[in-house]
Structures are given as structure tokens and as C-alpha cells.
């Protein structure tokens, strides 16, 4: 459990220390990539709790989602339609669903352990 948190901390520290900055016009892509990564992560945690976790699906989903979201945003910019909103919407809905499922699983586990 501590390893993913450690990864998060190291990643944030690296990002802050290297002082990398993204040009304004690309910050849209990065934000959607962050959302995709967050969605994949929460999905992975849910799958793990449901015991259906598959590493290949998790890792491929992570990169595929990021690329798809970014390309959708790119297409949206060139078509003049805010297509990245579609990605935001999809990821947002899935994020909430996954978190809800995780909450229920944790709740049931907690109540089970309480009964015992």
C-alpha cells in the first residue's frame, strides 16, 4: 500500500524540483492526461479490490487512455469543437462510479470485520 503513495510523492517531488513548465497551449492536453491517469488508477484499485485485477489491462489502459484523451483534445482543437469535454465527461463519470464501488467494497469489508 505504501509503494503507490511513495511513487506519487516521488513523482510530485520530481515535477516540482525539475521546474518543467508546459506552454499554455498544451496545458489542456496535460490536464486531460492527468484525468485519464487518475481514472485508470482508481479503476485499477477497484479491480484489485474486486479481485479482477489484470496488470496488462491496467498498464495498457493507463497509456491508452492518456493517448486517446490527448488525441481527442487535439482533434477538438482542430475541429473547433471542445471535444476534450467528452473525455472529461467520460472520465469524470467513470471516476465517480469507480470511487463509489471502492467505497461500497471498503464499507462491506469494514462491516464484515466489525461483525467478526
Amino acid at each position: 500500500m505504501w509503494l503507490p503513495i511513495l511513487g506519487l510523492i516521488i513523482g510530485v517531488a520530481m515535477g516540482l524540483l525539475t521546474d518543467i513548465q508546459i506552454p499554455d497551449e498544451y496545458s489542456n492536453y496535460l490536464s486531460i492526461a492527468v484525468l485519464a491517469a487518475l481514472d485508470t488508477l482508481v479503476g485499477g484499485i477497484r479491480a484489485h479490490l474486486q479481485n479482477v485485477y489484470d496488470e496488462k489491462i491496467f498498464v495498457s489502459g493507463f497509456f491508452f487512455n492518456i493517448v486517446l484523451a490527448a488525441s481527442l483534445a487535439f482533434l477538438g482543437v482542430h475541429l473547433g469543437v471542445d471535444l476534450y469535454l467528452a473525455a472529461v465527461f467520460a472520465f469524470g463519470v467513470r471516476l465517480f462510479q469507480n470511487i463509489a464501488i471502492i467505497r461500497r467494497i471498503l464499507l462491506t469489508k469494514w462491516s464484515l470485520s466489525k461483525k467478526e
Partner: protein
Amino acid sequence: MKQKNKISFFFVTLLLGLMLAIQYQSTNENENLDTKDMWELRERYIEAKDYEAKLIQEIRTIDEKIAEYKKVVEHSKGTVLKQTLEELQTEAGLTELSGPGIIITIQPETSFFPIDSAPTGYVSPDLIRKLINELNMYGAKAISVANQRIINTTSIRDVQGETKIDGFPLRTFPIEIKVIAEDEKTANKLYNGVQISTIPDDFFIDNLSVSISEVKKSITIPAYNHSIKVDVMETVKDEGEQ
């Protein structure tokens, strides 16, 4: 959680953290943007304009002050006096002068005489005086004979068989007479005047040849190097204001 799964989770969270940090930094930068609306910006613009106008006015008043000071200095008695003094010195011949002019060279004529009986050369003061008068007639501004500046009080006279200009004997030949004029036009006039004058003939009678150079752009005439003696002159007493 298996060890392998943990590692993939680790990398995913690492990437997520990196992206979050970058995004945070990028958006943080944008927070410094001016988010004031048009009217606020307009107000600030007007303020800046006012400030600019004030600065320009200040610059103008300071410039005016500088000009005033300059005027005061220019018109002060000291400057005027100095300027007058300089003008008078130039007029009197106490300063070096340069300008367009011609150089007249006088040499003893030897070609018609056998070598042993060649004339040693003697320039009579009358000749020099006549030459100077003619040069002044043609518009000469300043004249020097053998580097002796000719001024109004210059004495040209015969002292024991030697012509002296302010005490300087005209002994060594060739004698160079430098003449400058006010401008090139006058210099040309001067050159033409000397060319057609009878001066060379007068010199030839005394066995002297005269050669006149073309008009030169710049000839320097030395300043008068003796003190000017003023014997019969008195300062005018100021009777007006005092």
C-alpha cells in the same frame, strides 16, 4: 497485492504525480496574469497617461530652464567682453588665421646674369609696401611676409641697406608672402588681381622674380608676435550711465 502489481502501481502513480506537478506549475504561472476587466485597465491606462503628461511637462520646464541659463551665460557681460576681445584680437592680427589664399614667392633673378655678377637680392621697402597695398586692394584678409604678420602698425623700412619688417631683416631668399582671403571666391579674385597687376614687372626691375601659386584651400598665417605699442590713443571715458 503481488510484488509485480505493486511495481506497476508505483510507476503509474509516479507518472501521475509528475504530471500533476507539471500541470500545477504551469497553471500556477498563469495565475500571475492580469485579470482586471476593461474598465479597470482603462483607468490604469489613463493614470499612466497622466503620469506621462506630467513627466513631459517636467522635462519641458527643465529644458526651458537650461535654455534660460544658456541665454544668461551668453548675454552676460563677461562673455560679451571676451567675445569682443577675441574679435578685436583677430582684427588686430594677434591670432593665427587660416583660410584659402595664395603664396607669392620672391627670388633674385639669376638667369640673365653671369654667375659671378649675379645680384644678391634686395627687396626695397617701397616694393613690399606697394605689394601689400595692392593685395589689400584685391581683398586680402591677412598677409605675412617671411612669416612676419603684417598688421596696421607694421613698420617696413630700410635700415642700413637692409629691409626690415618690424625689425626682422629680409635677408634669406626665397621670401614667401602668404595671403589669405575671406573665402575661396575672394581668393580667386585675389589671384587674378595679382596676375594682372604690374607688381611682377616692378620686382623685375629690381632683378627679382615673382611666382604666384595657385589658390590653395588652406594657408595658415602666424599671429603678430610683437607687442603693439599704442602711443597716441586714449580710452574714451564712459559718460553715459555712470
